[in-house]
């Protein structure tokens, strides 16, 4: 059996202070310039990568590897991350390999990893096998989502073990079970017209005897999808048969290569197991509590509790370990695991959550958007005017409440894997300038800017 894996990983670009830097275009321009002068690196990039692309948000960039065997993938991932990091350094930027930016993801932008896998004996998986791989991986999505959820801090606040990507992403919808239907001619709905210029598509009868349908509208933007010409996805209809694969998109980024590769390996192991089950004539059906478990995995990550087919409840980690015990033999045929996932330790636990230094009193107000505030300062202090001169502030002050963030992180050859400390310091923007706030200051009044509009009208009535 040949198992091919392809990875797509989105990365953030950061400035030297750790905040999002929106210059992916400059980075790619630089990367092309550098590569055209370095023949060896260019050849390596050509053999490992399909391409590098920018995302709609200019602080994100994505590399896409070619389908390859697992042994090659390790080198390809390391090379790709280093290649982009090198260009980032040369453009005064860094790359961050996390899923969410701890401050500026609010909740968007979000990063994710797509794992594409195909198992076949002759390089072209049959429709039956594709359907089985899809159903089998889909049945284990709760375990995969739970153990790869990796978005500990969003908007400067602890988010927990849940997967921000799955909660907030606007393009990742749940996918349905796959059905096979014979359809020599397809109708493309009007709303999908941008994907293909045809409204009716004819298929080559001899090549594609049946069509795999996991979404009636042929939408590929699902947490898991079958890709290739034998699906009803309009963009894929004219692709080559050898590009047939299953794509898993509902995965948070893993900061370390070990975790990233092991995630890909587990998915490949499940695909391999599916092919063995097909060989034995087993029909893979949807697990009984799949949707319930999926929702729990998204919300609670590794801390979730799953309901097994028999009704027993188990911790997500235990369910994952059960799965690993079963697919271990197939994983060993493909490659070897090197991260904590082997023992059921997700990366979020392994590398830990950044320390957050916050002024809670003000943070709560900011969270509720009550940022037009009047405070009684607990003592006299220096404020900073807009032009940099100092002024003395005391008594009551009115203005706009906002946090100033500072981030501490470790950088290794242009790659940031983790933020160690997030410090939030609140200021009051008053008409005189900026006044630093301390916890002992009293908040007399705090309203939202729109609430402030209502106050102005109320004041008119009183007058």
């Amino acid at each position, binding site marked *: 059996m040949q198992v091919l894996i392809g990875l797509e990983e989105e990365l953030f670009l950061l*400035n*030297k*202070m750790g*905040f999002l*830097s*929106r*210059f992916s275009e*400059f980075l790619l321009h630089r990367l092309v310039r550098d590569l055209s002068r370095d023949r060896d690196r260019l050849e390596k990039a050509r053999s490992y990568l399909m391409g590098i692309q920018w995302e709609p*948000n200019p602080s994100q960039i994505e590399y896409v590897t070619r389908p390859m065997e697992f042994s090659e993938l390790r080198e390809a991932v390391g090379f790709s991350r280093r290649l982009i990091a090198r260009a980032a350094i040369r*453009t*005064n*930027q860094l790359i961050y390999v996390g899923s969410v930016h701890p*401050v*500026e993801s*609010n909740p*968007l932008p979000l990063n994710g990893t797509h794992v594409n896998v195909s198992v076949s004996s002759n390089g072209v998986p049959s429709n039956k096998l594709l359907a089985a791989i899809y159903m089998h991986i889909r049945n284990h999505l709760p375990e995969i989502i739970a153990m790869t959820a990796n978005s500990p801090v969003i*908007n*400067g606040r602890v988010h927990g073990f849940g997967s921000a990507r799955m909660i907030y992403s606007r393009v990742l919808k749940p996918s349905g079970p796959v059905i096979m239907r014979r359809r020599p001619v397809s109708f493309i709905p009007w709303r999908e017209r941008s994907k293909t210029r045809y409204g009716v598509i004819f298929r080559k009868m001899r090549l594609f005897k049946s069509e795999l349908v996991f979404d009636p509208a042929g939408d590929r933007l699902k947490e898991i999808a079958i890709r290739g010409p034998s699906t009803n996805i309009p963009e894929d209809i004219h692709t080559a048969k050898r590009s047939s694969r299953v794509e898993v998109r509902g995965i948070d980024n893993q900061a370390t290569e070990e975790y990233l590769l092991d995630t890909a390996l587990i998915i490949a192991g499940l695909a391999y197991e599916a092919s063995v089950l097909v060989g034995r004539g087993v029909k893979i059906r949807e697990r009984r509590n799949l949707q319930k478990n999926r929702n729990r995995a998204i919300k609670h990550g590794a801390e979730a509790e799953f309901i097994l087919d028999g009704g027993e409840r188990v911790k997500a980690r235990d369910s994952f370990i059960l799965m690993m015990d079963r697919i271990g033999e197939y994983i060993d045929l493909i490659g070897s695991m090197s991260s904590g996932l082997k023992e059921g330790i997700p990366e979020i636990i392994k590398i830990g959550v950044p320390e957050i230094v916050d002024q809670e009193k003000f943070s709560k107000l*900011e969270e509720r*958007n009550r*940022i*037009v505030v009047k405070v009684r300062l607990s003592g006299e202090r220096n404020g*900073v*005017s*807009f*032009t*940099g001169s100092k002024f003395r502030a005391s008594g009551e002050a*009115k*203005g*706009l409440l*906002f*946090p*100033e*963030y*500072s981030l501490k992180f470790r950088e290794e050859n242009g790659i940031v894997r983790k933020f160690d400390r997030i410090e939030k310091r609140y*200021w009051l*923007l*008053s*008409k005189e300038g*900026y006044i*630093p706030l301390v916890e002992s200051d009293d908040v007399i009044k705090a309203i*939202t*800017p*729109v*609430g*402030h*509009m*209502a106050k*102005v*009208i*109320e*004041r*008119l*009535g009183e*007058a």
Partner: protein
Amino acid sequence: MSNIETFPDLIRLHGLLSVIEDDLADGRAPDRRILKRTIKRIRKIRKDENMSLLLTSSMPLSFLLEDVRNDVALKEMRRAIERTIIMSKFRGIRSKIGLNKPMHYIMTYPVEEAVKAFEFIEGMRPVVLTVPHSSPPFQDKGITGIAREIAKSSGAHLFLSKISRVFVDYNRCSSRIYPGRVFLERIIVERGIKGVIDLHSSNMLEHDVEIGCFSGQTVPKSVLKILEECLRRNNVKYTKEGRFGGDIVWFHSILPDVWGIQIEISTNARKNRIVKALTNFVERL
């Protein structure tokens, strides 16, 4: 950001505020029923988080920081609603000013350092030239020199960024609470500035100059006509169809009092012609 539900409320609120404004202008006390209905509409909008944040992003800071006079406050509220209505319908504006997600006021650069991150050179005319991308890396090439020459020969005020846009991009809405932007907002009010000219450069333009004014929403036709005439007289090829504009032009232009134009200059264009054309433009205003 979906805000279709409260959009009709926003339109009605605009109408109600106009009625109150008219009453005040005529020296009458506003009708109590109208005031009640206005408050009711505002409270309804406040419950829609996305619309609320969009409306917040359209409010001038002075409205939130100071106790302004009632008539001024009403005018600012009405204008904020007008901007929100336009932004609700034209999503392109949001992406140009950097409002792709609901806006939250945060600072990602230390306040004490940010106060040194801009330079203001006082002029005599009621026009301010802004160069938000004047510092490396990723600076607009050659634009600082051009802006200094125009300011010197025309007597316009000049605002220069002293920090790279990698850290603070003054032409995005996220920079509005940074000292540079707050200072700019104050200068416009205190010095009676009538126009803001935001200068940029690019090596990817087809023409010598591209004019951005959010499809005419930030500048009156008469001013645009003068600019075109000055460019034509100095043989500068230009287009109005190209660049849209950024947050400086969008946020600081409040018609009919203050207009804003973004001017994108090609790095291949002849600098002396452009300096001459824009100097003439400022002098004729």
